[in-house]
């Protein structure tokens, strides 16, 4: 029997460390034997902290929202050969896992990421052995080609093509690089994979390196992911000790070693030439392609860069066959994709589903629909580089082509769900603010253009929008797209263009009617007290920081609109819902 505490960053944020410490303390206090081990994130972040108990027959019971108190009850029950029924995951929540096809996430939340033995006993490093002992370089690449695997970081470029280019490139020194600079706000699948199953990434890189004839690898990880760095470091050391990394791996002529380079916080470094510049200790600024990294990359040597999720798929493909991977998905997009489901969604977390599912399948089927019974408005796909898919396009099929047709992109798989209370102009302003700050400054249109667009969007949300602003935004957007060197600039205007495309009426409301229908833009709303609901409890008047609310006890209160700073404190302090926003 053993107990497994889910400890991804999100689980820890929800209190998993405290729960496992409490468990160990209580077990010691009771003087029983019950090993407590660790797993990564299972993806059901809304139920964290999650604790699994595996009994002597191998049967698993999952407990959710465990606290330092309930863990004691669970241990008591387990000791008596029972289950703490009241804390067990509901069948409905459990079914969420059954609705998924987990390939990249196959081990996440199941095995102990800090123990290589668990990865090996789940079939780990078997794919590498198969490649080294029975396959040529070309055969490995052919298998990846058959699978149809495409880059999961955003661009969706065929993996086999990149590998072939690197293999055929001149030179003996070649680098295998993993892009774990997951900068897209709202996406966290790469973090979850590294934290939950680091060896899958290492094995994927090893297979890629074998196929390309590379002996040196680097994982470029975001500095904001300290736990991922720790787990990956630990995994690299264990793999080295086992002989999976190093010289003459498994007695062959193939040698490969791996190191980590921590990023320093720059979104643009997700672009491969900027990433290479950063690896070389420079400012992360992209350069013109060609030459492509496959010809001249890190230190001018042939380099292959793939995303974490891409590498994590590789061992599965080699073990199960490319045709099995290819059997899933649509004509132009094969296999599965991991999505990070967040925002105004009931059941947020990580989900992995075959390509070809519909947007609505994820939002309603897996995510359980919108929080607080509100109406679904749109979902932002692909982060700041992507666009919004509005409610009327909820049946859009998830593959590279169909999503691109809506103006959004697959991107790294971030899905931020928005409801009726989200202002689309404010959303566009938010993304522009992000890309404007993150622009490296090399291309003028990206550096200056995003700033000008941000100014226009800001003035629209402040109620100072002018006739012609929408057209000006569109004009600037097209110029930035056309004259930027890298993906950051080329895609930065997408959130603006898609919100204009689908929610032009909201822009017009802001500009011409000075109205924000989502009631988010402070300059365009006003607060009033409903005389029928107000009982005169004085709560709002006491909480108003500027003394704008007057009224006697047990009498209707009134807000002085001249004094009101629209902080919203009266709304949150009123227990009777009497303060209305107009």
């Amino acid at each position, binding site marked *: 029997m053993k107990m497994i505490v889910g400890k991804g960053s999100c689980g820890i*944020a929800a209190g998993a460390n405290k729960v496992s410490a409490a468990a160990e303390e209580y077990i010691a206090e009771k003087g029983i034997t019950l090993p407590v081990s660790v797993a990564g994130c299972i993806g059901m972040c809304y139920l964290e902290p999650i604790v699994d108990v595996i009994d002597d027959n191998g049967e698993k019971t999952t407990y959710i929202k465990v606290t330092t108190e309930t863990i004691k009850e669970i241990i008591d029950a387990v000791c008596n050969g029972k289950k703490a029924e009241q804390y067990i995951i509901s069948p409905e929540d459990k079914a969420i896992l059954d609705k998924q096809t987990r390939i990249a996430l196959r081990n996440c939340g199941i095995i102990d990421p800090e123990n290589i033995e668990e990865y090996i006993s789940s079939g780990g490093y078997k794919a590498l052995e198969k490649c080294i002992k029975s396959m040529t370089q070309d055969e490995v690449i052919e298998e990846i080609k058959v699978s149809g695997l495409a880059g999961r970081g955003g661009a969706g470029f065929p993996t086999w093509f990149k590998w072939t280019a690197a293999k055929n490139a001149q030179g003996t020194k070649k680098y295998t690089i993993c892009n774990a600079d997951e900068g897209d706000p709202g996406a966290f699948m790469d973090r979850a994979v590294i934290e939950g199953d680091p060896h899958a990434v290492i094995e994927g890189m090893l297979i890629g390196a074998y196929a390309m004839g590379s002996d040196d690898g680097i994982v470029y990880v975001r500095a904001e992911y300290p736990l991922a760095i720790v787990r990956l470091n630990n995994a690299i050391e264990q793999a080295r000790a086992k002989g999976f990394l190093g010289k003459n791996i498994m007695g062959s002529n193939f040698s490969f070693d791996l190191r980590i380079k921590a990023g320093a916080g720059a979104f643009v470094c997700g672009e491969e030439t900027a990433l290479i510049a950063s690896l070389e200790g420079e400012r992360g600024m992209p350069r013109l392609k060609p030459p492509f990294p496959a010809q001249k990359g890190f230190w001018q040597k042939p380099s292959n860069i793939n995303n974490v999720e891409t590498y994590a798929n590789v061992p599965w493909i080699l073990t199960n066959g490319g045709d099995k991977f290819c059997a899933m998905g649509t004509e132009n997009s094969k296999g599965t994709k991991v999505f990070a489901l967040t925002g105004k969604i009931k059941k947020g977390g990580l989900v992995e589903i075959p390509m070809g599912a519909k947007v609505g399948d994820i939002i309603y089927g897996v995510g359980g629909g919108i929080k607080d019974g509100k109406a679904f408005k749109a979902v932002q796909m692909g982060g700041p580089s992507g666009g919004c898919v509005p409610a009327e396009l909820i049946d859009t099929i998830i593959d590279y082509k169909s999503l691109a047709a809506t103006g959004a992109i697959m991107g790294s798989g971030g899905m931020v769900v928005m409801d009726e209370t989200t202002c689309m102009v404010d959303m566009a302003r938010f993304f522009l603010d992000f890309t404007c700050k993150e622009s490296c400054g090399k291309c003028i249109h990206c550096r200056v253009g995003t700033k000008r667009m941000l100014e226009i969007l800001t003035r629209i949300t402040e109620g100072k929008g002018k006739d012609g602003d929408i057209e000006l935004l569109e004009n600037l957007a097209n110029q930035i797209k056309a004259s930027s060197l890298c993906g950051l600039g080329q895609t930065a205007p997408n959130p603006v263009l898609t919100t204009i495309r689908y929610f032009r009426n909201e822009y017009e409301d802001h500009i011409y009617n000075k109205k924000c229908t989502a009631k988010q833009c402070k300059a365009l709303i006003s607060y009033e007290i409903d005389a029928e609901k107000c009982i005169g409890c004085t709560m709002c008047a006491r909480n108003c920081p500027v003394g704008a609310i007057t009224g006697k006890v047990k009498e209707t209160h009134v807000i002085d609109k001249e004094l009101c700073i629209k902080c919203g404190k009266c709304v949150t302090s009123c227990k009777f819902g009497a303060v209305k926003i107009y």
Partner: protein
Amino acid sequence: MSSNCNCAQQAFAELEKVGIDATLLEPVFDKYGKIEGSLITILQHAQDIYGYLPIVLLNYIAIKTGIKPAKVLGVATFYAQFRLEPVGKYLIMLCQGTACHVNGSVDIETAVCEELNIKEGETTPDGLFTLNNVACLGCCSLSPVMMINGETYGTLTPTKAKEIIAEIKAKEAE
């Protein structure tokens, strides 16, 4: 760096004046000084040691590594992780990622600013707290989120955020 040059000693003396012990960096230079492309790694270690990267320290690193001071400053100011000003004892990293934004991170920022009486990017006069907005911390399902000295606090409300800070304040006052 030529052996006749005494600029390293001069820079060292300047660092001493502001109370920075540059000898702590020696193991870092030993390990990475000779490896090309290690500037970011060296800066990361230096910030781990001193908490921030004052200009005098950047100059010292430039002299020790032979990299031009302009480039060292360029790299240090390009990346969001590097700070040229000292931070408070508690560094509050407030997530402003998409999911947090949609779930009201702006209100959290207002609440924290009110509680500490500082603006984003500033440090309280007592040197206890620094407030920084950061792009996604990757805990989107728990949004809105903030991280204080490595510990993550999720599903915040303005009141909850204020309470967390008040708790730290109370602990410090003891």
